Structure formats: C-alpha cells, structure tokens
C-alpha cells in the first residue's frame, strides 16, 4: 500500500503570494494532520481534520487554512506568504482521530523569496 503522499515536493514562491499544498492519506485513514517544520526545529502542529471537519488548530495565524475532501485527502492553504513561512510542511495520517499512530509523508519544501 502507498504511504502518505504529498505534492508538490518543492515549491518556490514570493512574498505576498498564495500557496496550496496537497496530501493524500494512507488508504482507509480518515484523519489528516498538518505540521510546519522550520529548518533546525521540530515540527509544529497546524491543523487536524477528521471526517472532513477541523478537530484541532495550532497557534498559527488565519492566513493558514485547510480542508479535507470526501476521499479524505487534504489541502493546506497559506495566503499572503511571508519569508518566515519558508519551511518543510508535513502531512500525517492516522486511522482514527485519536489514540492512533500518525504516519508522515515526505513533506513539501516551501521556499518564500
């Protein structure tokens, strides 16, 4: 079975632009979480979606938004990009909302110039 897949692998944007990152969870997994990993730091929780509803949000500005589709794939949107948004964005899926193991994708590397 395929693992968590994220696209694109790399992305270069300029300040003020908008970006959409995509994630396909492991087949059968209904929960998707997003994390931001700035270079040299540990991942930070952004959002969790389960059954197409937002179930948790980390300490990120409203420029960050996400959604989950009926097939449980997910998109993360970031508006009005800042230089500080440059990071590796990781998607994780799990079979259930809680008490389960999160499986991570390889991430999308976003560079904001």
């Amino acid at each position, binding site marked *: 079975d395929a693992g*968590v897949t994220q696209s694109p692998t790399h992305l270069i944007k300029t300040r003020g632009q908008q970006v959409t990152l995509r994630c396909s969870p492991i087949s059968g997994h209904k*929960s998707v*979480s997003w*994390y931001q990993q700035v270079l*040299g*730091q*540990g*991942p*930070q*929780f952004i959002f*969790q979606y*389960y059954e197409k509803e937002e*179930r*948790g949000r*980390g300490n990120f500005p409203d420029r960050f938004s996400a959604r989950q589709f009926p097939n449980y794939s997910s998109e993360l949107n970031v508006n009005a990009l800042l230089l500080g948004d440059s990071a590796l964005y*990781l998607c*994780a899926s*799990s079979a*259930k*909302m*809680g*008490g*389960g*193991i*999160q*499986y*991570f*994708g*390889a*991430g999308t590397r976003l560079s904001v110039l």
Partner: protein
Amino acid sequence: AQSVTQPDIHITVSEGASLELRCNYSYGATPYLFWYVQSPGQGLQLLLKYFSGDTLVQGIKGFEAEFKRSQSSFNLRKPSVHWSDAAEYFCAVGAKETSGSRLTFGEGTQLTVNP
C-alpha cells in the same frame, strides 16, 4: 500546555557503541509518548510509542525507550549503533484529551556515527 525538551542538540558516537538520547516532557497527566527518526529529505518514521502499560517499550531497528514518570523522561536507547542510524531524532508528546492526535515535538537531536 505540553512541552518536550531534548537537551542534546548533537551527539556523536562510534559505530558499535551504545546510544542514549534524552527526552524530558511536561504534561499534567499520563502522556502519549513517541520517538520519530528523520533522515535528510525524508518525512518522519515512527521508532516506538508509549501509551500505557509496560514502561520499557521496544521499537523498530533495535531501539527501546523507558518511560519514567518520576523523572518525566522518555529516553531512547540502542545497545549497538550502526552507521545507518545517523539521522535526526525527535521525541514527541500527545495529550490524552486529544488522544495523541496533536503532537508536540522537541527540537530534535542530530546523531552522527563515526566509523
């Protein structure tokens, strides 16, 4: 709020030597605890987890970790390190209220293995 501290930013060991990576957490109740490994350009791979029960947890690739409630620690150990273990290691805690779904990670420990 939950937090994780990994005191060692970078550790260097010789191949075949034993390894211990430290992790201290802050959380008001019994946490869900995880160790993940990240190789360059890769996502995170789960090494092992602690939810409840036996405080000594076995994981993949010969790793183990011990949950010590009195010390708020969850240190990762391996008796004999292989060159392929060189990577960055992250300790993470999840709250039971959210059933471990919102992970808080430490800053990571970079492991270098000398031949």
